[in-house]
C-alpha cells in the first residue's frame, strides 16, 4: 500500500509582487518500507515539500494538491486537529542543524523523555517515571550512544554535533513512526560521522520497516542509501524513479548535469580536468522563467521549452522534459 501519495502539490506564497509559486505541481509517493531521496539545490523547495508533509508551514504559504493521501486518507480535507493527531502519531522529522533544534536550556534526559508517548510505556502509572527513563536509555543505545549517563545529563551545547544529531534521531524514533523525514541530516557533520548516520537510518529502515524520506543537496551521499530518487529543480519535479536506473540513464538534462558534475560518478575522469557544469545559476523566486524552469540554463533548450512539460512516464521512471536525453520520445 502507498504510505504517502501526493499528486500535483503546489505551494504558493503571497508577496507584494504577486503570487510566487515556490513548489510547482510536484508528485511524490512513498511505499511502506521504502527509502526515497529528495535531491535539489538550495531554493528548489525540497524543505518546503517536507514541511508541507509534516504540516508545519507558516500560514502565509498556500498549499494545494490534487491528492494528498496518507495511508489512503485524504489529509487536506481533514480538520486541522485531526491532521495534527495523525501526523504526530505517524511522521517524525529530523532537522538540519541538531544543536539549533534542541532546547538549549534543558538536559537531554528531559527532552528525550518528553518525546516518548504514554501509550508506549506498558506498566502501572506509578512506574511510568522509571519506565520512561529506561526507555530513554534504551533509545540512546539504539542510536549508538553507549555512554548514556553523561549524555543524558548534558546540555546540547556540551555535546558534539554528531551526538546531537543522534539524539534527534533517538527522539524521532521514540514513537515508532511510519515515516521519518530527514531534512539534510548530515550537512553539519564530518564525513566519518555522516556515513555512520546513514547506516543508522538504513538499519532502522530494514529492521523496523520504517520509511525514510532523505532530503539532501548532495546527490552522491544520498544515492548510496536510497532505493528511489526524486530530483527537484526550482520547485519543479524534473525526474523520479529508482536510484540505480536514474544514475545509469538520466533522462532530464538537469539530472544528467548533476550526475556529471560529481567526480565520484565519473571513474574515467582524469584528476584536474574540468568538471561538467551548467552555465548560469539558479534563478531567484521572484524572477522565475516561464515554462520549464531549467530553460535558460539547459544545453538543449528549444522553442517548445517555454511550455511547462508534463510528467512523462517510462516504466517506473518519470521525467518532465520535452526532449529527454535518450533519443526520441516513445510514440
Amino acid at each position, binding site marked *: 500500500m502507498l504510505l504517502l501519495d501526493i499528486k500535483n502539490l503546489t505551494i504558493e506564497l503571497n508577496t507584494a509582487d504577486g503570487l510566487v509559486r515556490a513548489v510547482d505541481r510536484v508528485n511524490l509517493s512513498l511505499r511502506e518500507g521504502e527509502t526515497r531521496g529528495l535531491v535539489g539545490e*538550495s531554493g528548489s523547495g525540497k524543505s518546503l515539500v517536507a514541511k508541507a508533509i509534516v504540516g508545519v508551514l507558516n500560514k502565509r504559504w498556500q498549499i494545494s494538491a490534487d491528492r494528498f493521501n496518507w495511508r489512503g486518507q485524504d489529509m487536506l480535507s481533514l480538520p486541522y486537529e485531526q491532521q495534527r493527531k495523525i501526523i504526530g502519531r505517524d511522521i517524525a522529522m529530523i532537522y538540519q542543524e541538531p544543536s539549533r533544534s534542541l532546547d538549549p536550556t534543558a538536559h537531554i534526559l528531559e527532552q528525550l523523555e518528553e518525546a516518548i508517548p504514554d501509550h508506549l510505556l506498558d506498566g502501572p502509572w506509578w512506574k511510568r517515571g522509571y519506565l520512561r527513563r529506561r526507555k530513554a536509555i534504551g533509545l540512546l543505545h539504539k542510536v549508538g550512544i553507549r555512554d548514556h549517563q553523561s549524555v543524558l545529563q548534558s546540555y546540547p551545547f556540551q555535546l558534539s554535533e554528531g551526538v546531537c544529531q543522534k539524539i534527534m534521531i533517538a527522539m524521532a524514533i521514540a514513537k515508532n513512526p511510519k515515516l521519518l523525514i530527514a531534512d539534510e541530516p548530515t550537512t553539519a557533520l*564530518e*564525513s566519518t560521522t555522516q556515513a555512520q548516520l546513514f547506516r543508522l537510518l538504513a538499519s532502522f529502515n530494514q529492521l523496523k520497516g520504517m520509511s525514510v524520506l532523505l532530503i539532501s543537496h*548532495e546527490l552522491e551521499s544520498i544515492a548510496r542509501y536510497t532505493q528511489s530518487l526524486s530530483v527537484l529543480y526550482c520547485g519543479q519535479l524534473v525526474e523520479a524513479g529508482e536510484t540505480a536506473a536514474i544514475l545509469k540513464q538520466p533522462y532530464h538534462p538537469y539530472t544528467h*548535469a548533476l550526475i556529471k*558534475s*560529481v567526480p565520484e560518478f565519473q571513474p574515467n575522469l582524469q584528476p584536474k580536468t574540468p*568538471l561538467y*557544469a551548467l552555465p548560469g*545559476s539558479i534563478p531567484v523566486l521572484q524572477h522565475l522563467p516561464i515554462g520549464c524552469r531549467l530553460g535558460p540554463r539547459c544545453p538543449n533548450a528549444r522553442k517548445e521549452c517555454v511550455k511547462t512539460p508534463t510528467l512523462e512516464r517510462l516504466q517506473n521512471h518519470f521525467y518532465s522534459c520535452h526532449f529527454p536525453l535518450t533519443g526520441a520520445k516513445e510514440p
Partner: protein
Amino acid sequence: MSTLLDVQQLCKSYRKQSGLFRYRTVQALDNISFSLQQGKTLAVVGETGSGKSTLAKLLVGIEKPDQGRILLDNTEVQLGHYRQYNHQVRFIFQDAAKSLNPQQKIGQMLDDVLRFSTAMDVTARKQKIQQTLKQLGLLDEHSEYYPHMFSGGQLQRVALARALILDPKLLILDEALTALDPSLRAQIVNLLLELQQNTGLAYLLITNHLRLVKHIADDLLVLHQGKALDYGETAYVFEHAEHDYSRKLINSAIA
C-alpha cells in the same frame, strides 16, 4: 617547478584555563612539515579539532607558531608582517556572503584592498579592478553592486576576486567549496583549475570533502589531533594510507 612554501616542524599549542589557577595546554599542531610547489594543490583533511584551521591561521599570520619555520620562496618569513606578505598569501573564508561587508559596493571593496596594499594610483587601480572582474567572469558594472545583489556562486567569485586582485602566489581556501550547491561547486572548481593553469597559482585546500580532494588535489595531508598522519601524493595516499584513521576517513568517502 620551484618550491613555493616549505613548512618545517611547525608546532602550536594553546593554553586553556581549566581551573582558577590551573592551565591546560592543548597541542593544536605537533611537528607538521610539508612543502607546496608552485602551481600545485595541497589538500589538508581531518575532523574538527584536528588543527586544520590552526594551520591556516599560522599560514596567513593571524597566529604565530611556537616552533618551526615557514619558508616562502626559500626565505624564512614572519607571516605576521602583513605589508610584506599579504600579496603572496591570500585567504578565502567558508561563507562568502558573511565575509563581505554588506554596506560596501564591490568596486569600493576591491579598491580598498589595492589602496591599502599597493602604490597604484586611481586610474591604475580602476584598470586592475576591471581586469580582475573580467578574469573571474564578472562584468564591469558589477563593481557598482552591493553583495546582496549577487547570487551564491557570484558571491564566491567576488570573494575570489578580492583574494586574487593582489596577484598572490598561494591561495588558502578554508572550506570554501563545501557550502556550495553541486552545480555551483562544479563551476567554481572549474574556475579554480583554469586559474591555476593560467597563472601558476598554488592552492591550500582545507576541507572535509574527500571526493573533491581526489579530483583537484595533487598532494594530501591528513591531520588528526594536531599530528600529521599521512602525507604524499593524493592518489598514493588514497591507495596506501598507512594509518588506521586515514584509512577510515578515506573509506567513509569512497566505499
